[in-house]
């Protein structure tokens, strides 16, 4: 593929980076990234991936844009209120970079369709706002051998990791075997979220996705980052594959996808 003059100009500031060049830009153009959730994490992640020229972005969300989303979900505008989030997101991404192909999934993602949806993608970014989806995405990525870039936020805090159980790394369940019991994690109305914290973690996810695609830097696989935005402190933990993991351990008990019911709201996204 030859780059057009416009493409060279658009991507020039990243093409001059060591480890990118024309070869890296081609990898980005050919890359397919699936983003679960067009909310607080998915919005900044999708915007930067589209800006960088990631060729195909899949966007799944069954919600419509509401006014209380706009404080952090920067894919959407005030005039988009009432639109399905994926449609509003597609419109924003295409206006930023018309070269990007945006595939949208306005349907609810469940055990019945998730494997079929993610199988054609290279990478999955989880920006979901509830534990049933978070576990469903992790399990589907494990079964489909997809690298999962996971982000989560609540109040002033965020978490980040990359899960590659197919490459000997841990999965989300190695850390968190089951969804928390009802009432254990505060709901969005109780907890709240500072919009910029969603931006920080969402952009860390985008950064990790770009690194994985380009094959540069040090992966977050086997590492877990916890961020406290009030202190602006970061703590990194080494995480390992759990041999007793219910999903990817030596004697797994989870052999198919599970649709957990939403007994309590998860992290606000």
């Amino acid at each position, binding site marked *: 593929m030859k*780059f057009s003059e416009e493409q*060279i*100009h658009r991507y*020039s*500031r990243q*093409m*001059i980076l*060591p480890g990118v*060049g*024309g*070869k890296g830009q081609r990898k980005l153009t050919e890359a397919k990234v699936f983003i679960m959730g067009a909310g607080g994490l998915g919005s900044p992640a999708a915007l930067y991936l589209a800006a960088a020229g990631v060729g195909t972005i899949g966007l799944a969300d069954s919600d419509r844009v509401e006014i209380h989303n706009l404080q952090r979900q920067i894919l959407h505008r005030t005039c988009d209120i009432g639109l399905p989030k994926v449609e509003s997101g597609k419109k924003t991404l295409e206006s930023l970079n018309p070269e990007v192909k945006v595939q949208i999934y306005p349907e609810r993602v469940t055990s019945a369709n998730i494997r079929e949806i993610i199988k054609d993608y290279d990478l999955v970014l989880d920006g979901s706002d509830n534990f049933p989806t978070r576990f469903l995405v992790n399990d589907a990525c494990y079964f489909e051998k997809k690298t999962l870039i996971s982000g989560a936020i609540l109040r002033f805090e965020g978490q980040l990791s990359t899960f590659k159980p197919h490459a000997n790394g841990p999965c989300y369940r190695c850390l968190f075997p089951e969804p928390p019991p009802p009432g254990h994690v505060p709901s969005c109305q109780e907890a709240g979220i500072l919009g910029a914290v969603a931006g920080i973690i969402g952009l860390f996810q985008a950064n990790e996705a770009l690194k994985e695609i380009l*094959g540069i830097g040090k992966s977050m696989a086997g590492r877990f980052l916890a961020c406290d935005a009030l202190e602006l402190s970061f703590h990194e933990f080494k995480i390992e594959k759990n041999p007793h993991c219910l999903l990817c351990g030596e004697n797994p008990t989870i052999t198919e996808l599970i649709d957990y019911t939403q007994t309590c709201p998860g992290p606000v996204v």
Partner: protein
Amino acid sequence: MDQSSKTQKIDEEINLKGKICPYTFIESMLALEEMKVGEVLRIIVDYPPAVCDVPASLKNEGYEVLDVSAVNDTDWAILVKNKELEE
């Protein structure tokens, strides 16, 4: 034509007259990525900063710059040898 171009075998040439940095460097790099290892690219530039910046950036990327010389009052020729692309 300058002396170096007469003696040095040249496999490809790109004319980047009228182009400014960083596009001069990017287009040089893209041309090299399309060429075989060890082949020599002759780059013509007329943007004065590119005479220093393009060879410096190519050296940073691991390319061997064989020669930089004036072609006439406005144009410069940069000769660069293609390297093996690392995966």
